[in-house]
């Protein structure tokens, strides 16, 4: 789950990044509108948190740029502007949600989950396949009713595969979901995580195909 935060305030930006990383997301941070637009064009995000008062290119402009490219990535505006006409303008420009600063962190996280859920056309944050359940909100994995402890990286890989159940996900796409643009990518991280998951949840859960990547097949 890779998210983009477009926020020019360094304190709020780094705080948000830390909070979202703790919630299990991979986070990119853009401190001005220009960088935000460039990042949105270069990368597909699961969700974008957008401040309106961005330098260089305003938040609304960046939002219109995204929507003009028929990009349906969920966008939550996080701003100090609280007048009704400003909310209307933001939502009409293509935002999916509007949060006024200062916000409550738990509420923001719930809104982020809701938007991602809706984007993936799911009804709950609990995904399951072949006796394995993943709760995206509580960040827990259960196998045949028993809680299984997994590492952060293993959880991210499992969640990414669960979301796209029945589809092959390339190694590069999994890496994109795992690393933000500041981290060094280690070459065998994905293999290590898949190995760990197979060990804990059963060898048959995750299938591999050379050139295609990994998949959790749909239950027959």
């Amino acid at each position, binding site marked *: 789950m890779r998210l983009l935060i477009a926020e020019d*305030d*360094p*304190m*709020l930006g*780094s*705080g*948000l990044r*830390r*909070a979202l990383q*703790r919630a299990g997301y991979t986070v990119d941070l853009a401190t*001005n509108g220009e960088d935000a637009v460039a990042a949105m064009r270069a990368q597909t995000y699961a969700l974008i948190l957008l*401040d309106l*008062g961005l*330098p*260089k290119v305003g938040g609304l402009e960046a939002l219109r740029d995204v929507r003009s490219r028929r990009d349906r990535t969920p966008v939550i505006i*996080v*701003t*100090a*502007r*609280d*007048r009704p006409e*400003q909310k209307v303008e933001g939502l009409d420009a293509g935002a999916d949600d509007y949060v*006024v*600063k*200062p*916000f*409550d*962190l*738990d509420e923001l996280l719930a809104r982020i989950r809701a938007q991602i859920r809706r984007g993936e056309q799911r009804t709950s944050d609990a995904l399951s396949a072949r006796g394995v359940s993943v709760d995206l909100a509580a960040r827990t994995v259960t196998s045949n009713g028993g809680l299984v402890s997994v590492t952060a990286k293993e959880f991210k890989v499992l969640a990414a595969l669960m979301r796209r159940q029945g589809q092959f996900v390339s190694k590069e796409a999994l890496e994109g979901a795992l690393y933000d643009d500041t981290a060094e990518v280690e070459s065998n991280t994905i293999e290590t995580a898949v190995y760990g998951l197979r060990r804990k949840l059963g060898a048959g859960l995750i299938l591999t195909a050379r050139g295609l990547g990994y998949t959790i097949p749909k239950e027959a």
Partner: protein
Amino acid sequence: MSRRPLARPGSLLAALFGRVGVLFLVIVLVVGLIAFFTAQKRINEIYDAQMIVGANVLRALISEELSEGPNAEAGPPQLSIDDSILSPEDREAFDSYAEWRMFRIWQGRRLVLGSDTGPAIAGPPVEDGFSEVAAKDDHWRTYTLHVPAKGVTVLIGERTDIRLVLVQGIALGLALPLLLLIPTAGVLIWLSLSDGLQALRNLVAELGRRTLRDLSPLRLDAWPRDLNPLVRSINRLFERIDRSLMNERRFLDDAAHQLRTPLAAVKLQAQLIAGEADPAERQAMTAQLIDSVDRAADMTDRLLTLARLEARRGVAEEGGDLREETVAALADLAPLAARREVELAFEGPGAFPGGDPVLLRLIAANLVENAINHAPEGSEVSVRLSAAGGRRQLTVVDAGPGIPRAERERVLERFYRGPGAAPRGSGLGLSIVGEAVRLLGGRVELRDRADGAQGLCAVVELPDAGAVPAPLQT
């Protein structure tokens, strides 16, 4: 356009009515007087002409009597004194002139015939023509006619007051309708004036209905052409109010952003700390939280400073000294400079008196702080004071990234932060400088460094002590 106020600010309608009324009265009076004097002149002419005719008739009558007299051939003709000289008809004709006419006929110096009326006249006047004779109770106008061939003098007289009676009759006939005309015209003038002012009253009502939400301009064609300058002025006023309201709203939006963002960071960090188990992490995050609170407090201070500056109507305080305040600001900022490893240099001999000390301090402190925040580590921020041509100059030079030419006007705007703005900047420092300098009647200029090196050279020019600050803009 003269700015002279109306002499009397009372009612416009009453003032207009007063002026038009007085003008009307003067016109009525002048017309009445002209009519009166013209009538008098004509009456005099006609009555004089009648007297001439009367005298000639009398002479003709007399001549008849003389030529028919018994002594026609011997010596000068003699007129007899008795009344038989006039036929009863003639006599009656004279009687009908009543009290106010007279006549006398002399032969030589002997009175031959005369009416009972009129003043006593000693002898025939020497000169022909008109003259005035004052009697005991009345005043007479006479006409004298000599008949030299027969040594006869004819005099016709008329009491002047009879003419006066006639003239008075005419004047009365004139005055009555005029007197009736005055109140009628007054009512009409009042009605038409208040009708004319109705448009003005409508305009007042229209303006009374307006609120701050509706500042759309008034339509020019909806009002009489005479009111167009007024309507245009009102529209310009609306425009200015609208613009200043928009500015206020933008200020509030910006202020909301500037205050809520650090508060959001504070809240977020507090929530993160609450969920953090690692004590070392908690400590680091608490330090960040304190930093955020400081920043929010600093932002609040600056916002209040700027708001107070903008609300200031004039600069009352005097007696500041630019050098004193600059040195004090440098002392305050020395710890910040030391933390950021920036050298401070100052040059400014002598005293630079004049201006509000609080404003001078704000200017110096914000310029220097801005320079320190943008200066790279190990570089120098130099502050210089100079005086020339009745103006004091404060120059602050840093070796920071500078400000592109196109941005230099905008950085003085509230909350504007250029692309090279320091991450900790509030976007208010230079606005505060600009506002304080404006209040002191000076100007700010942002330039390239004179030595061509990278950085910014900020120059503030202030008038010397005693110079009158520029009037406040609205």
